[in-house]
């Protein structure tokens, strides 16, 4: 028996608060932590599998054209070489997140520099790598001077637009306004674990260990790529060493390993090199953004414009949704939101760490800072005056929203001085010191999710779903929810994830995993509780489960006894419903930062940073805090160090390793304070939780940019704010 809950109205029962256990919300250690730090948690490439052959992808050394022939004989005599796999099912690009179908599959038709088009398989990895470099092939490449690589050099197409009222007039009539154009550079997900897969084929069934965020979609994408039935495929992604969007869709190595295993009849492992991960999986598009804000004399927004130019390859549906939070965050009845896509031949653009808000919020919040300056208003106060009563375009009510609390409590905890602000007020030696703030906002999404919960005859609980833990804490929170709902100690709960033989979870992406998957476990537990109640002959609502016993109707019985030999197994299904359409839902917060800028060299260093966040129920205070800290670290990267550099001649990613693509290192990340605001959002999910994973990325780079200005007087319009850009913008002493 199973239970399905469609989220058609807010769930105000707050059931988790009524449970006797107090595990949900507690800063419980990760159950998977010890195995991970001891190296005992195998990642995709680490499974020990007999007779595994090694595959290395061969990539195109030109930007656009056709591979006309592949000379397999050029490497057949080489040591250890088993085969060259060139197959029309090889995927040229990764699947976009939740695509649920195969990505572009024309491997020989090259659309970007570094596109994989074949796989060389050998006995050892070194042999495969050597042979892959030695493989000869013919091609006809288009003249690079005729291929567009620069998004501003081509005519862009409209992707998404909202127009309401007359923004031009609002700007003209405004007491104060800003009209600013920003540029942000491309980002890489830069997950620690490279993309990797081991595929095994037994003649009928394919088993793939892969590093993927969403096995529930990836199985469909893989089946579609291979022309196989899903029933004949099993994907395992038990541990994922970071994904940050780049592992949402099935990518080239997984499809290639599968085809090779099926053709060769032996297991094949394919691990991308760091350079291949950078050059062939996903990039966040660079953006050009124009922000127009019109305000009345008190700083209330009357007009709001946010236009963005982004890029992608031809045929890709994804366009960085830059204006996602702009749609709902601030008022202004005259509005214009626009996203345009330039079709260029850089690698595939897709979801990278909070697609949309990560780059859209930082510019918006930098523009708000300039508006506050024009108004001679405290930037916190400007935000407080612009919390709309209803969604400015759709008129929908907001679900629970802790923006005001985050702004006020954050300001207080940080020690924000709310007086008038002027740049260049404080210097310590060579360093200008300044502060800046920004609002945080990220839409809340949920996805359909299923999980099976079994109360075993020994009193333990098993939770099964193909949901993943990509370092986020899924193992922890599902343990906590099941423990409290069924009244057992967390140590008695085993969570088994990342296996497509289990019920389908939502996958990890768009910060929807915890709320969606957590709800499915909650719902399955409700069904288990109902079965227990029936056995006791009481109403489920009158049941009290704690310490491994069930109480109700004056009776008390051990759960193990009630479970019996066969146990009680229930599947819970969570489905998004009307509630998702009836409310504007998002997680909110505020960032405050203190930054030092070197007056000579223009180096900027964040000295401290605080984020105050409201994202519904906190399921685990420790893993949630870690998510926030991780997000704020990305903010430092986006503000100061991270940019993908593309060659102007052939569009390839030039800084394609972690030495030259600069994610922040420990020394760049000061103490980060996180304030989690108590909240229950009944419309968000049956467990009143919203997304937190990406919230910490959304806006913080703006707080740093604003602090740079406050410190040294340099207003910059390009992210990241590297020393060269800062010295160019800094007023001379």
């Amino acid at each position, binding site marked *: 028996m199973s239970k399905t809950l469609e989220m058609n109205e807010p769930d105000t029962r707050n059931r988790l608060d009524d449970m006797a256990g107090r595990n949900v919300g507690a800063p419980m250690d990760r159950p998977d932590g010890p195995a991970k730090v001891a190296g005992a948690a195998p990642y995709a490439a680490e499974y020990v599998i007999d007779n595994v052959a090694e595959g290395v992808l061969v990539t195109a050394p030109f930007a656009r054209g056709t591979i006309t022939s592949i000379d397999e004989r050029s490497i057949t005599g080489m040591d250890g070489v088993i085969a060259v796999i060139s197959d029309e099912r090889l995927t040229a690009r990764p699947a976009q997140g939740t695509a649920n179908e195969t990505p572009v599959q024309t491997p020989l038709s090259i659309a970007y520099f570094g596109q994989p088009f074949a796989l060389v398989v050998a006995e050892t990895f070194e042999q495969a790598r050597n042979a892959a470099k030695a493989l000869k092939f013919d091609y006809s490449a288009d003249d690079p001077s005729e291929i567009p690589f620069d998004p501003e050099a081509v005519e862009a197409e409209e992707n998404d637009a909202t127009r309401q009222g007359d923004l031009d007039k609002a700007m003209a009539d405004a007491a104060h306004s800003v009209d600013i154009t920003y540029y942000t550079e491309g980002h890489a997900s830069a997950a620690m674990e490279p993309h990797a897969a081991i595929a095994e084929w037994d003649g009928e069934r394919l088993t793939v260990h892969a590093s993927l965020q969403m096995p529930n979609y990836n199985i469909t994408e893989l089946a579609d790529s291979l022309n196989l039935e899903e029933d004949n495929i099993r994907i395992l992604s038990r541990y994922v060493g970071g994904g940050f969007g780049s592992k949402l869709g099935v990518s080239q190595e997984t499809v290639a390993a599968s085809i090779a295993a099926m053709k060769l009849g032996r297991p094949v492992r394919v691990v991308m090199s760091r*350079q291949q991960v950078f050059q062939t999986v996903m990039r966040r598009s660079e953006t050009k953004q124009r922000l127009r804000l019109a305000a009345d004399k008190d700083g209330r927004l009357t007009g709001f414009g946010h236009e963005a130019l982004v890029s992608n390859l031809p045929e890709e549906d994804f366009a960085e949704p830059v204006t996602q939070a702009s749609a709902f965050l601030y008022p202004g009845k005259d509005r214009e939101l626009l996203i345009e896509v330039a079709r260029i031949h850089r690698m595939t653009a897709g979801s990278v760490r909070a697609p949309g808000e990560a780059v859209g919020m930082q510019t918006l919040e930098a523009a708000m800072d300039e508006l506050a300056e024009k108004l001679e208003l405290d930037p916190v106060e400007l935000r407080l005056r612009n919390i709309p009563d209803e969604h400015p375009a759709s008129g929908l009510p907001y679900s629970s929203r802790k923006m005001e609390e985050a702004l006020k409590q954050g300001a207080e905890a940080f020690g924000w001085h709310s007086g008038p602000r002027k740049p260049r007020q404080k210097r310590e030696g060579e360093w200008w010191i300044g502060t800046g703030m920004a609002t945080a906002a990220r839409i809340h999404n949920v996805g359909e999710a299923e999980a099976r919960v079994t109360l075993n005859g020994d009193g333990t609980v098993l939770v099964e779903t193909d949901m993943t833990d990509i370092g986020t804490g899924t193992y922890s929170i599902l343990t906590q929810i099941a423990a409290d709902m069924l009244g057992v100690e967390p140590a008695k709960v085993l969570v088994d994830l990342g296996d497509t033989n289990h019920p389908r979870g939502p996958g990890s992406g768009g910060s929807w995993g915890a709320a969606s998957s957590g709800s499915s476990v909650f719902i399955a537990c409700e069904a288990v509780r109902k079965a227990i109640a029936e056995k006791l002959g009481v109403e489920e609502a009158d049941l009290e489960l704690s310490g491994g016993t069930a109480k109700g109707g004056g009776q008390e019985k051990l759960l193990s006894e009630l479970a019996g030999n066969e146990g009680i197994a229930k599947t819970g299904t969570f489905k998004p419903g009307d509630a998702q359409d009836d409310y504007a839902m998002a997680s909110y917060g505020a960032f405050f930062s203190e930054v030092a800028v070197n007056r000579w060299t*223009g180096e900027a260093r964040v000295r401290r940073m605080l984020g105050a966040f409201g994202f519904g129920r906190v399921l685990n205070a420790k893993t949630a805090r870690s998510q926030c800290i991780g997000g704020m670290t990305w903010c430092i990267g986006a503000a100061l*160090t991270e940019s993908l550099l593309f060659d102007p001649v052939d569009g390839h990613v030039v800084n*394609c390793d972690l030495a030259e693509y600069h994610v922040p290192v420990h020394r760049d990340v000061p103490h980060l304070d996180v304030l989690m605001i108590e909240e229950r959002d009944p419309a968000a999910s049956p467990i009143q939780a919203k997304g937190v994973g990406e919230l910490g990325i959304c806006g913080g780079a703006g707080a740093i940019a604003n602090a740079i200005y406050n410190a040294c007087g340099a207003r910059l319009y390009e992210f990241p704010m*590297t*020393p060269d850009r800062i010295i160019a913008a800094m007023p001379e002493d």
Partner: protein
Amino acid sequence: MKPFAYLRPDSLTHASQLTEEPSAIPIAGGTNLLDLMKLQVETPESLIDVNKLSLSEIGDEGEGLRIGALATNTATAAHPRVRSDYPVLARAILAGATQQLRNKATTAGNLCQRTRCYYFTNIDQPCNKREPGSGCGALDGIARLHAILGASSQCIATYPGDMAVAMAALGAEVEIMNAGGETTRVPLEDFHRLPGDTPEKDNILESGDIITGVILPAPVKGVQLYRKVRERSSYAFALCSVAAIVNMEEGRIGDIALAFGGLAHKPWRDKRVEEALKGTEPSLKGFDEAAEILLEDAQGYGENDFKIPLTRRTLKAVLCEATGMDT
């Protein structure tokens, strides 16, 4: 990675003979060479592992100090005499790479580390240094890391290291043994070369040459500083760096040595800059004039134009700090 032979000689003479073969390359810590081999930028037929040679000692040599070719960067930076007498060297080493890398990196390997030019490390791109005559990808491409001084139309790469910049300011000498068993010493300043028409040659080493050590002269008086500028505060190469040894005499600049990193195919030392400053009273104007001399012939290639103002500013910062000027 191409298959290669791996040899581990236990005498210097044998090592040097083995290295005489042009397709043989010595390997020390391997932190640079192995990366390049994986990328097939380096494709030696044999690797001559020098780690069995007794070259890791650090010890007095007269009033100076001799640092063995195999002394690790960590050992050198932590050596009491380096810390007390040559702090600019300790600072430069500690500004480079990471603790883990410095534990493996050696004196000789650090001197010989190759450029970080993105086109040099990508064998699908043209590069005259890697493949003479194939062109220079950086000239029409992304030249953010590249040289503003002493570059040629063939190559605009920089020598990326920090340690050697401090050694250049200190007036160190590199000790080299050739295949014939002769040992010579060359000033560190002359060890790296400018690219000219033969960018494939980073330095003066010939086949069969093995670096045996670096000799620092007797310590000099003065403040020693190393300043490295980069967007990421660690684990990044220098956008520009300055090693400075400045001795103040009665309010005036006395003996002074300045060397610059991240600007050229070698650690850059321009004695004219030092001469211009010597004997003057510290002033921002004087520092500006010195920077003017340094950057007289500087040329940017688009992406790296910023290095010109950045170097000027960094030099001023270092001179202010070294001379104790209050600004």
